[in-house]
């Protein structure tokens, strides 16, 4: 069994989770402080990928990043870089799809944060940066970590958008989910089933981690 799809899935999910971890947290932090109208509008836009079919996300990404499209053309001309059909193209897809998960869980964690802690900190002279890293983040840690693990799990299972932007090339862009589909399509049921088991095992571990994080939060 060629383990490339596992490795590829893990690196795509890992990189996009790391990226979205920070992006989601900072968006959540600043948007939770924004005026209500701006908050409402940004909230809808940023949550959209959660409810859109992944194929629609893939389509929209291709319209922007495709070789004949605005950003795609620019990268091709300046860096001689094709943004689609490489293994890391999938990172665009997974990042967009998992962003709402990270953003919303982080925002939920920040919203349940007792602002009096921040005010107390400010009144004794602590800087806002210090309060963010040494008080707000540690206090919201469990919620944020649960969001990150959930995002990782979702990134690992991403199929639709990934398939459209990175395609399926064995040994190059194949992920677990695209491999399962390909194997099933070509009647290789036994191998498909093995990959399904691999996927189940990973998902199980990830959800167990989420549960443990949430239980800790309850104490």
């Amino acid at each position, binding site marked *: 069994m060629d383990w490339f799809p596992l490795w590829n899935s893990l690196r795509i999910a890992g990189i996009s989770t790391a990226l979205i971890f920070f992006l989601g947290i900072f968006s959540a932090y600043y948007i939770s402080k924004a005026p209500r109208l701006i908050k409402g509008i940004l909230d809808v836009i940023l949550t959209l990928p959660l409810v859109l079919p992944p194929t629609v996300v893939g389509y929209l990404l291709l319209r922007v990043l495709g070789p004949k499209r605005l950003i795609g053309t620019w990268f091709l001309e300046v860096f001689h870089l094709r943004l689609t059909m490489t293994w890391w193209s999938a990172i665009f897809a997974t990042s967009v799809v998992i962003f709402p998960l990270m953003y919303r869980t982080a925002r939920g964690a920040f919203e349940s944060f007792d602002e009096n802690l921040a005010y107390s900190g*400010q009144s004794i002279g*602590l800087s806002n940066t210090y309060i963010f890293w040494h008080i707000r983040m540690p206090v919201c840690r469990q919620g944020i970590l649960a969001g990150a693990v959930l995002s990782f799990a979702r990134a690992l299972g991403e199929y639709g958008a990934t398939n459209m932007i990175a395609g399926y090339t064995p040994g190059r862009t194949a992920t677990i989910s695209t491999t399962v589909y390909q194997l099933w399509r070509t009647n290789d049921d036994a191998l498909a089933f093995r990959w399904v088991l691999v996927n189940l095992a990973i998902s199980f571990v990830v959800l167990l981690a989420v549960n443990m994080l949430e239980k800790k939060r309850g104490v």
Partner: protein
Amino acid sequence: MSLYVDIEKKLGNFHLKVFFEAENETLALLGASGCGKSMTLKCIAGIEKPDRGRIILDGVTLFDSDKKINLSVQERKTGLVFQNYALFPNMTVMQNVAAGAKREKDPVKRERLIHEFIESFGLASEVNKYPSELSGGQQQRTALARALVSDPNILLLDEPFSALDSHLRFQLEQEVRRAIQSFGKTVILVSHDRDEVYRMSDKVAVMQNGRIEAMGEKGEVFAAPKTKNGAILTGCKNISEVKILDDNHLMALDWGLKLYVPNIPEDVEYIGIRMHDIQAGEGENHFRCFVEEVIENTFSYTLLLRGVEGGAKTFGWEVDKKLWNYYRPKTGNIHSPASEKPVVDIRIPSDVILLLKG
């Protein structure tokens, strides 16, 4: 050392407009929830921004809408203590107090300062505990130590005892009073509890609907509230609308009692009579009353009375248990129909009647 506050802030239908000054003393903002007392505190701390006005502390302008001055919370150097203490849950007692000493840049001095406050607040054996492992009293001491170690110019206490039961509350009040005394600068205390305010403060400002209705030395404010709301907040339970009959007589409409009060001002709309100011026996403003209900308190009874000549509402008389046992009428039953209820003689000396505006 003084605080000058003159601010205005609109928030939806709510309109806060307060003006007050305080010297090196404890000023209590007394009011029901939603009266604007916490908002006022937040404006002083810099958490909320007033629409208009000025806040000056010890000659330093913290906020001035005309000069566009609005110092950050950090720059204002206020000591804030919240009802829930807002201790950093991820830090130990030592780390919480140390966070308060961060302004001191010299590490040797800082260490000394931290230990001094840990000692003087009796926290030496709890330094490695987390807030969730502390008792209510220890949490409060930690919060006070953290606020005071930062060397604030003013101490702001937001309902510091509301979450506590009465026994613990009494102990903690004493600790806070000690801390206030050694602090020696202006302290603003926000509270809805009149007893707490009376014990803790020097001056009281009674607030209602975003305004300060009455302000002064606590003895004055409590002894002679000028408004209906002031009377309620200082614990007066018997309040009735009145009709002025002549210069020296008025009718308490709710109770149907005609009362003698010398020199009644024209703008009196209500009167208040504190339950324990009513006396047994005959004399000035003597009335015969039916006892409609007897409520037993820890050390006294509260009797609900209605004049024998009728009145729309009852009023309360708080009477010492021993006195009532001696004075209790031997005939009549409070559960009987009106005319057979026990009857008592009471008098309401004219000097205990509070003359109030609306």
